[in-house]
């Protein structure tokens, strides 16, 4: 049997090589899974990874990529800042829902007023909603030392019930003939998040995602706060001696990730989803966790990872309509990707040695 030997310093090569290796391994394992389900694995893999970008309907699907990648990138960047500092916000899905509800509520409150300021105010309200929802676990963590993983997760279920109440109760479309769901924002131009450049699928959410990626990169590499985040994650004791306040860091990281998740929710509900409905949220908050790790918790890496994950969504939908692949198969596929990534990651910090090889001692 082999044994593991710790590397003196993490391998630069494997740091960048692990995501592609994990993707290839996932394609192989996924192919076996698809074959076991009686599908042609090569056809499925091609439909998921090739057709959305270069296939027959690519002119439309390429736009869909940014539509799906936008919220994933926005949420994942926020999460990554926290993960870097050892703060585990798992409830982004709840913050995403609350951002959407807050933002949509502001827009619907002034319906049908037309004013250029309405959408910007809704954006702020959305970020505020997500921030507020993230502040609950943050304050409980700093004041009472409560586990933020469990609290933020419990709040997802609470947010889901509030969403159900919103779409059947306080935000329900009064002209909706009794159907659940709010007014549709596509018929309310002042509050609508329309496409800025449709062929690329660019709406304000996409712009926000790309800008946030760059800003977060600058924050992490060039700013004092970014240094403190990294320090707190890698050496908590050293961080305290350096004067980093753990409580302030929790509030900062949770706040940023909550606000970004709220923004993503607002852009989604006013754009692609169109209205508040019981199931407008599609689990972006959870998938974003995979995206954050796939992007190596690095903002620029996350932008790339977001597009890759969007590819599995868009391609997965194609495979589902054209080849009859169940939606759940894509979820399994995404889970496998995270598993392989975590497994291959060992090579960054360790090297494999055979027991008899030179230098094993």
């Amino acid at each position, binding site marked *: 049997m082999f044994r593991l030997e710790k590397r003196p310093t993490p391998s630069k090569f494997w740091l960048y090589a692990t995501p592609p290796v994990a993707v290839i391994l996932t394609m192989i394992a996924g192919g076996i899974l698809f074959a076991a389900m009686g599908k042609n694995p090569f056809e499925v893999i091609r439909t998921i990874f090739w057709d959305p970008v270069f296939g027959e309907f690519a002119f439309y699907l390429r736009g869909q990529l940014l539509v799906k990648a936008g919220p994933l990138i926005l949420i994942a960047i926020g999460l990554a800042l926290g993960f870097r500092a050892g703060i585990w916000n798992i409830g982004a899905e709840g913050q995403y829902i609350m951002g959407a509800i807050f933002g949509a509520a502001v827009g619907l409150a002034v319906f049908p007023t037309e004013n250029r300021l309405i959408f910007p105010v809704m954006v702020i309200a959305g970020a505020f909603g997500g921030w507020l929802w993230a502040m609950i676990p943050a304050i409980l963590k700093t004041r009472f*030392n*409560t586990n933020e993983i469990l609290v933020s997760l419990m709040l997802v279920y609470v947010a889901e019930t509030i969403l159900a109440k919103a779409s059947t109760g306080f935000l329900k479309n009064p002209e909706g003939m009794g159907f659940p769901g709010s007014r549709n924002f596509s018929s309310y131009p002042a509050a609508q998040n329309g496409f800025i450049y449709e062929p690329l699928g660019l709406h304000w959410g996409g712009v926000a995602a790309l800008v946030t990626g760059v800003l977060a990169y600058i924050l992490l590499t060039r700013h004092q706060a970014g240094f403190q985040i990294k320090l707190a994650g890698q050496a908590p004791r050293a961080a305290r001696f350096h004067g980093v306040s753990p409580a302030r860091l929790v509030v900062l990281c949770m706040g940023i990730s909550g606000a970004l998740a709220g923004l993503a929710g607002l852009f989604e509900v006013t754009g692609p989803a169109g209205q508040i409905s019981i199931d407008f949220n599609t689990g972006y908050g959870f998938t974003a*966790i995979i995206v954050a790790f796939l992007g190596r918790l690095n903002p620029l890496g996350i932008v790339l990872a977001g597009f890759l994950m969007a590819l599995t969504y868009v391609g997965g939908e194609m495979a589902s309509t054209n080849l009859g692949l169940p939606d759940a*198969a894509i979820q399994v596929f995404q*889970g496998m990707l*995270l598993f392989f990534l975590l497994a291959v990651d060992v090579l960054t910090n360790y090297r494999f040695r055979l027991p008899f090889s030179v230098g094993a001692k």
Partner: protein
Amino acid sequence: MDLGGINPVILIATLMASAVPILLAALGETVVERAGVLNLGVEGMMVIGALGGFIVAVQTGSPVMGFIGGAVAGAVLSLIFAALTQVFLANQVATGLALTLFGLGVSSLGGQGYNGIKPPPTGQLLPDVLADLPVVGPILFGHDWVVYFSILMTAVLWWVLKSTRIGLIIRAVGESHEAAHALGYKVNRIRLMCIAFGGAMAGMGGAYVSLARVPQWVDGITAGAGWIALAIVVFASWKPWRVLIGAYLFGGITVLQLNLQVAGSIIPVEYLSMAPYLITILVLVIMSAGRKGKVNGAPAALGQNFHASR
């Protein structure tokens, strides 16, 4: 004897049954965490157990086989976690989350075609003569075997962890893996076995949801029970009997809010169904308030991977 349309005897009897899934899962996770491993994949292992148990029970026609199948399914899934964290030294928090996402995906993929089927019933264990006794009958004698099994497991784990050699080794590994390693114990192997045990318990708890509580197969049937189980372990300060109290408390709240919904309470249904989650948060706050650093009773090596460098 009715209090606002709710019979307290029936309430206690139902809460004992409704607490079984979280009790089993939380007991398993207690052992895992006492060995120093934080497995956040309980929800995933439960939902896989729910599906595995359901399929086996429907195919064999035997609910007992179903529970065994659920336990096996949960244990198999937990081995992925064990391999990643113990062999490949992956981050436990991230791996646990991945396990939950993966488990939910696999279960909804594998569960296609099982919707709307009724599983073989898991009946009352003891004869009607006992179960029909007033008050004590429904509470003490009216349950199926899994309810008694879950209480028995509480006692067994309490005894094993407290006064056996195995329990001592598990605790040593969880408190100081360096010291346990120096004494010659195979830290990663012991942890691997604890993880598999935790997976089996979570899987069996999941099977109880799909075979006895609901009883049918629906996507995402466990609905956050795994996360509540994780919270109960913290609530219980990693002690089996307190896990039982915690599980019954949450079972009680769940049953009570359902009863209030049926009885037509003035509180809207949505707010009632939030109650278990909000109360979980509240209890977590109370349990961890006023303590600096590690939460009371947390194993010292919780969440840290061990690599034998020497």
